[in-house]
């Protein structure tokens, strides 16, 4: 025996051995490739259709920036944009004079935007030498440069300098901000649900391979069963992150190619999505953590259910009630978005399986952070409990005896009946 080796692996080391094997095996399997490509087909088809539609209706793309300058400046700006479009294409907004501003010296672009009149991403006021962009922070960031570029070209054919573009961010009231954050919460919940639904299902059939190939007993003899469960869960979580990364990159690529067209077709513009209460960076971080928790919680449950199955067919039979369970959990969490502080929201937060969904929505709506620390600790504890319970059940129900012994038990049962 090698003297450098300890008598046993720690639970973490044991889980790592399982996770490493499973991760590599799943990642380099053909099934995973098809799994990755599956959701991309509708997205690609939708993207292509949107892109074609966008080309056809380029003029109608809703990324319009209103012009509320003098009639002469409006005309100069429109003409300059027309000249530049050939070279810059979609990098420029469509400039449209705001009819309500014509002849109205008291036109207030800010008030106009806040009243959500028209369909403008932003409005340019001022003069060619001193243009001013009024809009949400996201739209200002997007169009400040192009507006300065167009204004420069509107002043002279080959400008050597471009005017600075003053900005005025459109503020919303606290009440309206809260109401618009519901949209962010709903979208985040929906995304979380779709990802867990797509990915956690993989765990259902995870132990079937080991059982079908009779490897499970080797694993169970060498390391504790909860380490096997934990390793499998984390391997599948890592695989999920790979999947999300691939899908994310694909989505980013599609958006880069035809974001305007997608916005046109779907009416969804992420730049207009209200910022969550905890801010975008923290919201994204919490989103990743809650995805991991939702995945681990559902995964531990699915692993336990799936481990009781003896064949892929049985796993398929189990899929339907499991999907129903996922839907119920999602509906519970979704229902509570508009009932902050209610007993139902507390119940959704306390119930481990709906907790990540409810808490992600809360991150969009409420700025407090301590509740997230508490919820994450609770969810992690629930993962451990589920894994422990699942492994105990597995040992009790599945690792009974050899083939002949099982027959004997059946005979015994028949005799007792």
């Amino acid at each position, binding site marked *: 025996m090698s003297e450098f080796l300890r008598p046993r692996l720690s639970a973490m080391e044991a889980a790592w051995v399982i996770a490493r094997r499973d991760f590599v095996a799943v990642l380099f399997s053909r099934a995973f490739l098809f799994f990755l490509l599956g959701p991309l087909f509708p997205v690609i088809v939708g993207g292509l259709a949107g892109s074609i539609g966008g080309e056809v209706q380029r003029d109608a793309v809703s990324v319009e920036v209103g012009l509320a300058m003098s009639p002469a400046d409006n005309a100069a700006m429109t003409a300059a944009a027309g000249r530049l479009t050939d070279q810059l294409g979609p990098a420029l907004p469509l400039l449209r004079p705001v009819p309500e501003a014509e002849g109205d010296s008291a036109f207030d672009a800010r008030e106009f935007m806040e009243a959500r009149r028209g369909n403008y991403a932003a409005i340019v006021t001022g003069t060619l030498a001193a243009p001013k962009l009024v809009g949400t922070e996201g739209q200002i960031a997007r169009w400040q440069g192009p507006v300065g570029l167009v204004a420069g070209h509107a002043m002279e054919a080959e400008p050597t300098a471009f005017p600075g573009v003053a900005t005025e961010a459109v503020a919303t009231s606290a009440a309206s901000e809260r109401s618009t954050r519901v949209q962010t919460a709903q979208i985040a919940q929906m995304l979380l649900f779709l990802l867990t639904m797509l990915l956690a299902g993989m765990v259902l059939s995870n132990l079937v391979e080991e059982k079908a190939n009779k490897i499970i007993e*080797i694993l169970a003899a060498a390391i504790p069963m909860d380490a096997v469960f934990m390793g499998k869960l984390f391997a599948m979580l890592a695989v999920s992150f790979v999947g999300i990364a691939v899908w994310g990159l694909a989505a980013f690529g599609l958006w880069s190619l035809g974001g305007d067209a997608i916005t046109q077709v779907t009416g969804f513009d992420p730049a207009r999505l209200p910022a969550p209460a905890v801010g975008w960076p923290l919201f994204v971080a919490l989103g990743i953590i809650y995805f991991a928790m939702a995945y681990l919680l559902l995964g531990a449950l699915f692993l336990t259910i799936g481990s009781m199955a003896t064949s892929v067919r049985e796993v398929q039979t189990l899929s339907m009630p499991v999907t129903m369970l996922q839907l119920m959990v999602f509906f519970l969490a979704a229902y509570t978005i508009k009932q902050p502080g209610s007993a139902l929201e507390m119940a959704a937060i306390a119930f481990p399986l709906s907790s990540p969904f409810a808490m992600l929505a809360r991150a969009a709506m409420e700025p407090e952070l301590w509740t997230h620390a508490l919820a994450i600790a609770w969810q992690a504890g629930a993962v451990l409990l589920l894994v422990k319970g699942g492994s105990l059940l597995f040992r009790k129900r599945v690792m009974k005896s050899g083939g002949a012994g099982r027959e004997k038990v059946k005979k015994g049962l028949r005799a007792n009946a």
Partner: protein
Amino acid sequence: MDMAVSDQMRAGNQGEGFSAIPSDARPLAIEARGLVKSFDGTRAVDGVDISVPEGAIYGILGPNGAGKTTTLRMLLGIIDPDEGVRRVFGHDRPHDIGRLIGYLPEERGLYPAMKCIEAIAFMGALRGLPLKEGRARAVELLERHGLTHAADRQIRQLSKGMAQTVQLLGTLVHKPRLVVLDEPFSGLDAINQGKLEQMIRALADDGVTVIFSTHVIHHAERLCEGVAIIAGGKVPYAGSVEAARDRIPAQVRLETRAREGGWLSFLPPETRRNGDFFHFPLPESGIEPLLKGLIEGEAGILSLSIERAGLHDAFVAIAGEAAARQLQADNEGDRA
């Protein structure tokens, strides 16, 4: 083995509820007392006691469904007993010393897409052997068993016999101190059974304790120092093979020229006649008074041999005719 583990092993052998170390004073690799396990109200194992000294080859002998696999699983900590205690190298929780144990289950299994070398290294990694070290040892083991050409082949590309060998090598790659084999001869042809016997002997020569279950008496008889005979979940006998054989008297086989005569009265009442031969247990008074009677009675002795009872006879005497018949049927099933 490090000192701490060795000390714990010895300490464990003298713990509460366990018998003393056997007469040869070797520490025990495995000690189990009163193991009971029920499944769905049926007792699969019913009060099993086993003591296996370090370095021994030990067989658990019984027909299919007798409780062999369940016993082994309890000894290894795969399942916990409902009652009773088990200790492996003095530890109540076998997983705590997983590094010291190698286990080949009855239902063989490997990941079909894995290469042989990776499969062996993975099984080592489960027991704490670093992957790099495991791969290096896998190369050595494959070479030693004439399977170098299969090192980079996927398991699914191997014959059944080769796959079984690869799994056995995976069981041994981390150099365990205790090797537990559940029906290791099952499914092997005669040549591979012979190779496996050699491998088991070689392990024992290196001081490794080997415990295996079987329903083939010959393997146990040829290999084992000790056996536990298990039938119906109970262990009516656990001890040395020699002591098992000594439980029934030697058998006398006599051939005579005369068919009748007064000499017949010298034969014990249990005598069975089979053609020209008489079979009976060696009388407690020894062979001399019998010989004298046969000669004086002019039986005309053509041949007389005293045969020591085999393990099969011991099994029949200990476990009963029914268990022996089932064992025979299992063997025939294997051959079929």
